[in-house]
């Protein structure tokens, strides 16, 4: 029987004759790719920042970052866009999954016929394609799906109750494991390096953390920044603002990684790690006015080039604003001294307690030295000039911070009102809060600013930490009058601030007169901005210098002034912040070297 079955059963295949065919007549038009199909690339050019993560992950080398017409490099955008070679692409879509901004996607289009083989290398989004606006296709699969860690490694900090009455540094610093984990998040795009005023080799030193070659990292940092201990703590980290990782998560904690490297090398190992000598092989002498970031940075690079450098400093210690403006809980003096000591170890001299203009004039320096660099910074305060500011209980934040840093007693009232919304305002607020805690065991400070919290210039972490330290913040109020009674301050009258800037973006605050408040206080501190004091430049010399219409000094790309021997940098030119000062100092040092070799003239103006 089975034999007969074996002969007959294959004929059941004839049953298909009466069935409809299963094939599709016109598959190209009738059958689009599935909603998730990995077809051809699309790129949202506006959203793309040219970080090149797609290029890095591409296993076949199909993606190349190329400059394209109509896209300019700017802060946070390399100006490059991915070009895909379909001769190499394997459509794995890892480029889509790793894209920092989510601009790169794949459409579900899968047919592309052309006679010209060249067209299959194209820049998605720039070279227009029929599938450019297709909604369907491979997209990042869900919000939780990442090929990277979105959250940064949290920095261990002192708890509010541990720090509210002490000046011990708040931030504890990363451990080895934490630093490596944070460094691992970096995608090596280099947007940070382009944005950093000093153009530090950030991806390289982050790689050094990853590979635990900390001495190499240290050398990399010193190439562009001789104050890494300082910058590792209080840099304004413009790099982190543009970090590619910041688009969909937390930016890399670049500042903390810098601090990790700097802290890992002890001061006695600096010379060993940096392997540099001061050649002192040039007979030219350079005077620097001000031992702040600009002066120290320039001194360091000039000393390395072999020049004799002498710094004239008005205060009894070096550091400028880094010492006299920034409280110790943010930047301990030991850290600052570590950086300064290394610079001094190269043979840089500092003459303290010497104020240029009073103790020595610029003209004298010009006579004795081949070139002079001025980086005197912004050490005078601006006032709100509201009625009552002439009262003796009204103080300037910078003066108080400077006095406190020198070890002097500063007045601390039981109830204090601080005016200002920037980092200096936060510094003085938090310093006074600590002193109040020590003196009265409680904090009673109101800090008020014109700006609402969203647009306050202070760093968010400063604002948050001030709140944790029990400071009352009152953003969005404009100071009107300081109320006094029998020679004592009673408080500050304020009006609701409607807007700070006008349509043209100029400072022109508008107030709501019906909405007022009164902040009680026995003492008022103003922290609304700083000004420069360049009275040391004599009238005669001023005639030979260029000023802008708004009274700012004009210098060229190398910070050289119209008086070719005189270089000017730092907060009085750019900034204000430490990293600009360091960058200016480095550039000015190169400018001075060029000038002394006869290769630099003033005619190259800044394109300001």
């Amino acid at each position: 029987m089975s034999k007969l079955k074996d002969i007959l059963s294959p004929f059941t295949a004839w049953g298909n004759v009466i069935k409809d065919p299963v094939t599709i007549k016109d598959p190209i038009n009738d059958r689009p790719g599935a909603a998730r199909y990995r077809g051809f690339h699309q790129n949202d050019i506006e959203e793309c920042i040219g970080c090149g993560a797609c290029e890095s992950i591409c296993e076949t080398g199909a993606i190349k970052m190329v400059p394209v017409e109509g896209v300019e490099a700017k802060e946070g955008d390399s100006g490059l866009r991915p070009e895909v070679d379909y001769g190499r692409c394997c459509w794995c879509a890892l480029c889509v999954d790793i894209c920092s901004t989510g601009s790169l996607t794949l459409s579900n289009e899968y047919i592309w016929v052309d006679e010209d083989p060249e067209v299959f290398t194209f820049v998605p989004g720039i070279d227009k394609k029929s599938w450019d606006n297709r909604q369907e296709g491979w997209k990042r699969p869900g919000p939780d799906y990442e090929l990277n860690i979105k959250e940064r490694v949290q920095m261990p900090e002192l708890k509010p109750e541990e720090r509210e009455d002490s000046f011990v540094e708040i931030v504890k610093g990363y451990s080895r494991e934490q630093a490596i984990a944070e460094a691992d998040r970096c995608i090596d795009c280099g947007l940070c390096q382009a944005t950093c005023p000093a153009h530090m080799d950030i991806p390289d030193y982050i790689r050094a953390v990853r590979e635990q070659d900390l001495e190499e990292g240290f050398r990399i940092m010193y190439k562009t920044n001789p104050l890494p201990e300082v910058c590792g703590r209080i840099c304004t980290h413009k790099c982190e603002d543009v970090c590619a990782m910041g688009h969909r998560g937390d930016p890399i904690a670049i500042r903390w990684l810098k601090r990790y490297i700097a802290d890992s090398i002890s001061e006695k190992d600096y010379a060993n790690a940096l392997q540099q000598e001061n050649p002192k092989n040039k007979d030219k002498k350079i005077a620097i006015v001000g031992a702040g970031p600009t002066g120290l940075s320039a001194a360091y690079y000039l000393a390395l080039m072999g020049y004799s450098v002498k710094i004239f400093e008005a205060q009894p210690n070096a550091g400028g604003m880094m010492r006299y403006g920034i409280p110790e809980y943010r930047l301990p003096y030991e850290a600052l001294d570590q950086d300064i000591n290394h610079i001094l170890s190269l043979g840089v001299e500092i003459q303290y307690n010497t104020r240029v203009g009073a103790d020595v004039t610029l003209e004298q320096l010009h006579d004795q030295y081949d070139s002079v660099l001025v980086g005197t910074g912004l050490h005078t305060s601006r006032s709100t000039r509201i009625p009552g500011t002439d009262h003796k209980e009204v103080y300037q934040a910078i003066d108080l911070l400077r006095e406190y840093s020198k070890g002097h007693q500063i007045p601390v009232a039981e109830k204090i009102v601080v005016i200002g919304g920037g980092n200096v305002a936060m510094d003085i607020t938090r310093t006074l809060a600590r002193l109040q805690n020590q003196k009265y065991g409680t904090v009673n400070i109101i800090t008020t600013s014109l700006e609402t919290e969203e647009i306050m210039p202070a760093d968010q972490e400063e604002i948050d930490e001030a709140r944790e330290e029990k400071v009352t913040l009152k953003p969005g109020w404009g100071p009107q009058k300081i109320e006094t009674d029998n020679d004592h301050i009673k408080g500050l009258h304020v009006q609701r601030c409607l807007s700070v800037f006008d349509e043209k973006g100029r400072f022109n605050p508008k107030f709501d007169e019906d909405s007022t408040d009164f902040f009680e206080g026995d003492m008022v501190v103003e922290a609304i901005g700083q000004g420069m004091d360049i009275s040391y430049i004599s009238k005669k010399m001023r005639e030979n210098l260029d000023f802008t219409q708004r009274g700012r000094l004009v210098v060229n790309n190398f910070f050289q002034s119209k008086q070719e021997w005189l270089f000017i940098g730092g907060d009085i030119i750019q900034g204000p912040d430490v990293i600009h000062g360091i960058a200016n100092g480095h550039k000015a040092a190169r400018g001075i070297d060029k000038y002394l070799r006869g290769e630099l003239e003033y005619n190259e103006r800044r394109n300001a």
Partner: protein
Amino acid sequence: MKMNSRQNNPSDRTPKHEYGPDGKPQIDLSSGKYTKVWQGPNHPGVTGNMSLELTLCGDEIVDAKTHVGYLHRGFEKLFERRLYMQVMPTCLRMCVPESDTNEYCFAEAVEELSGIEAPEKARWLRMLVLEMSRLQMLLRVVPGQGGAFGLGIGVQWGMYVRELVLDLFEELTGGRVYHMYMLPGGVRGDLPEGFRERALKVMEEVYRFAERIDNVMFNNSVFKKRAIHTGYIDPAWIDRFGIVGPNARAAGYRRDVRKDHPYLLYDQLEWEVPVLEHSDVYTRARIRWMDMQVTADLIGQILEKMPEKGSFKTPTPNALNWRIPLGETYVKAEASRGEYGYYVVSDGSPYPRRITLRGPSYTHAIALLEKMLIGADVADVGGIMVSLQTCPPEIER
């Protein structure tokens, strides 16, 4: 019946040649009695390229040598120059027709070395994809066995059903052949809406196909004559040659990694491992035919038991800097051809130190085939090779 007498059935084999001390026949090519024939490297017996050097006496094979080297792409070396994440799109090309086993083994190995675990949902999805992958492979090789003996109709039907499975793959993974679906840490997407219903419909098609191929191929007197007693593997050779998968199960060995060393969530599924005894081409095809239905059944079970909700990917470190801790591991899975494993060594850098693949084709197609072919008819070589389910890309990596 004369045909069967020439088959590789030991009981029928009568020594016609002089054998030397090495057990090989003493062949004097100048005697005019023998012919040398090269089969391959391109031929219907295998996907990919592999060559056989056959010495014939009439149309009986007296000596066979396997030659590989036509397909060497240096994958294992390429891996050493790639980040772990970049290995993914390369490793799945090790075996074109069944790429997911590569994905699974490598992803699992990386997870094991770095101490992370894929979420439960991802493990269900991985199992689903592995079974779908097995299914589409079997839809190719079961009728392919008929194709090798000249019965083309089953191949057409099989390919149609396979396309339906590939459609499911396209929906779920975004790719039809190279799925790139499993990554270390999980998978790349959840089930699309309505997938279960569509998948179950395709499974009905699979059962229908199994019935039809049973009629047309397994109950076909011509196929039976060609396949029964052809390509006999002595059960005693199983362990000597390291034979695994359906080839071992057709010789009475109950071997299945899914049962013996359950991975993923296979211990939550219920099925019987098919085992048969005759160990010839027909039995091996029959085992695969049974496997095909078991797999369709498993897919139904997975779709039914898989939880609705849940994360499908564990957070993993930056793919561009992912350093895997120092260590080594071997991860194996049951591919449609048998045990398939990845040995991964990490030296703690972002690049693997060594990745090597243990695939069943290496033993089946190189050592075993040389032995099996002796005494076989030259017309059956293609059929015998198909019955071993050889995949040369996995030999030459």
